[in-house]
């Protein structure tokens, strides 16, 4: 083990394999937000994303011996998250004939400011829902979780150029959606 204060993923995985709760806790803390973001990008629902992300950590622990490159734990974990989330969506869609889309947010009557915010969020959900899965995942990991291109490329096993390209198109789509929403709001304000 290296003497550094923050052990790398490989070291934590090796310790977690031996049942070190602290090491496993550090892995969870390090990747819980990313796992949630990836799960959300697949399920489109916050409750489902939470369930899928939690389950994925437990599955990852059970299969930790199958992680052949402990230093690439994050990419391996994200694959589990993606698969668990897809399974969850499949199960849900079998249960419900009309699956709630990404854009289906709770829209309760709210005061003006809240209503405005809620519309903006709905527009953003719509725009996110319209993105291809990989673009949605990348923009959430980059702009919400703050992962760098290199980290995303490395952990999702994608070429760096592909990551940049996906991010560029995803951002453009989101900005268009957001500016469209703003135009609607401005028009509403200016109307008598």
């Amino acid at each position, binding site marked *: 083990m290296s003497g550094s204060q923050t052990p790398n993923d490989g070291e934590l995985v090796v310790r*977690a*394999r*031996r*049942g*070190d*709760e602290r090491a*496993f*806790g550090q892995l*969870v*803390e390090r990747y*819980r*937000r990313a796992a*949630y*973001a990836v799960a*959300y990008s697949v399920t489109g629902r*916050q409750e489902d994303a*939470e369930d899928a*992300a*939690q389950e994925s*950590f*437990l599955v990852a*622990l*059970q299969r930790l011996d199958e992680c052949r490159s402990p230093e690439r734990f994050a990419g391996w974990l994200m694959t589990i998250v993606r698969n668990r989330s897809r399974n969850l969506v499949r199960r849900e869609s079998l249960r419900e004939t009309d699956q709630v889309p990404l854009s289906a947010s709770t829209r309760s009557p709210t005061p003006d400011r809240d209503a*405005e*915010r809620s519309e*903006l*969020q709905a527009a*953003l959900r719509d725009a996110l829902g319209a993105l291809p899965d990989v673009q949605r995942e990348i*923009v*959430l990991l*980059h*702009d*919400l979780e*703050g992962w*760098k*291109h290199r980290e995303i490329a490395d952990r999702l096993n994608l070429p760096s150029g592909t990551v*940049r390209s996906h*991010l*560029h198109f995803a*951002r453009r789509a*989101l*900005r268009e959606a*957001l*500016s469209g929403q*703003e135009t609607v*709001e401005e028009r509403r304000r200016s109307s008598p």
Partner: protein
Amino acid sequence: MSRNWTTPGGADDDEARDVGVASALGFLDPASRDPGFWMRFQARVLQGAAPELARRRLMADLTVGDVLTGWARALVPTAVLAAAVAALVLIRLTPAPLPATVEDLLTAGIQTRTIPEALHESEAAASVAFATERF
């Protein structure tokens, strides 16, 4: 909410976070509505992981001696039991008597009377005269 979405901070600098998009996406972070969300998330995962972590600790603590002792603990009684059963079976079986002499070997399986038998009988009955004539 009047933000200039078309010119967000660092929008064209791919490596930087797009501040506009990032802040707009902020509502997706569960902690934005529930500050204790991630703590509870962490606690739930660790609670669910506790049995598996305990199993792994137990496996990691086992030494070669423990493994061998564990084997012996199961193996010795099984071997003793198997030996006892085998002994019982051997005792109960009445093995066929083995032929002891060359004659026995030569006459084994012959249904009719054999010369050794005839000789034996004649010895028991009386003396047998093979020659009647005397010189």
